């Protein structure tokens, strides 16, 4: 079973807020990046708008294998 999240690379981020501005469901993506957290928000559509809009390549979509995660967790 595989799924995915948008994950940040905080060192590239300057907190400009473009990601939060363009999120269609209103997630404050920028706060997640500041805290180095994946966007695991239940309403996240993984539409990729924040990934594309970020001018500094901070965000990327990463496949996570839930099965492995569950097993090791």
């Amino acid at each position, binding site marked *: 079973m595989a799924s995915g999240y948008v994950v940040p690379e905080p060192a590239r981020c300057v907190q400009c*807020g473009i990601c939060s501005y363009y999120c269609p469901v209103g997630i404050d993506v*920028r706060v997640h990046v500041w805290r180095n957290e994946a966007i695991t928000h239940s309403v996240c559509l993984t539409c990729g708008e924040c990934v594309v809009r970020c001018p500094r*390549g901070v965000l990327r979509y990463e496949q996570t294998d839930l099965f492995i995660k569950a097993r090791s967790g």
Partner: protein
Amino acid sequence: MKYVVIGTGVAGIAAIEAIRTIDTLGAITLIGDDPHGYYSRPGLAYYLSGEINDKLLFPQIADEFRKFHVNSVKGLVARITPASHSIYLQNGSSFEYDRLLLATGAHATALSVPGAKLSGVVKLDHLEDARRILKLAGRGKTAVVVGGGITALEIVEGLIARGAKVHYLLRGNRYWSNVLDEDESHLVENRLKEEGVEIHTHAELKEIQGRGHVQAIRLVDGRALRCDIVAYAIGVVPRLELAQQAGLVIERGILADQFMHTNVPDIYAAGDAAQVYDPRSGHSILDSLWGTARDQGRIAGLNMAGKKAAYIKSVPSNVTRLTGLTTTIIGAVGKGRDEDVVGIARGDSESWRELPDALAIQTAFDINHVRLLVGERTLLGAVVMGDQLLSLPLEKMIAGEVDISPIRSQLLASGEDIAELISGYWLKWKKLHAS
């Protein structure tokens, strides 16, 4: 414990967050002279270009700060008296500290030509500067931009986005000559020309003319241009007045050790104002990078609150957008001096120009461009423009000093697909070193 942080930029904010991970009770006072407090200063470029509005510049951390019980004070610090652990504001109020952080940042180097004080002459340090530019810019307006590095280009792009006609003056023969190579400079210049920017090389500003407001500029060689706006970004200078007055040791910035401590007991420095010891190179280095300022602020905060933590300088890197091309600059990539910048520019690192002997290789496909600086056994630096697939692996490989011996000769051989070599090798290396 009483903490005072001077400076509302990211270094100061990161320090306060770090202090509160250790000391939840100590009194924290944050003092700054920016009327808007903390906001994303790099984000000003996107405010200028119209991608975000000014509200967006302010991250929603106000609630968290309320939890931190920070006493925020707006004002200018006039002096520090280390002997009595006191600081005095210009408005007469004073505070005592047990631990003090100077995170005073840097400001734009002033233009020194005649006419620099005319209205219509602008820089890009603060939100108020950006607002001033937006007020002046617009269709039918002509602007002259002077300077180099990232900020000058951000101003050029902002002005174009607002419909102004832009003349960009370069003192030398190409853009950002001590970081970019010739191909990269020309890539940027050609894209600017496509957007209608007129680039004037070997153009040294002599004077700005006008009555009250800018009307024209004149160059040293006699050329003249009519304009309504003159914008400049010729470098930044750390704000050092307070440190000087307090007797701190200063070179190009406030000297700080690995624990962000200055030579004066209980006074720390971080961010653009700090010149920090780097054990790897043996030098004290000045950076003007947002990420570095955040890291240094965090380390300063931990040490101020009593947790010994050393600042390990990571390989300096910055991501920026040059004429719409996302560009990552990692490690050592250039040499020498850029005629368009005095000292250091914003978004710049001195260590980008500490390039030892290295062989440069580059590859270009469409508008995408990768340049690698290849050392004896490791990669020393990289410039990635356009497609950013390689920038993350390269950052990790350069910072981790990954041994590239197995692919070095292939990398240096012409005709090899560098992108494929790097990504293939990185995947293999990661797998081998997992767990």
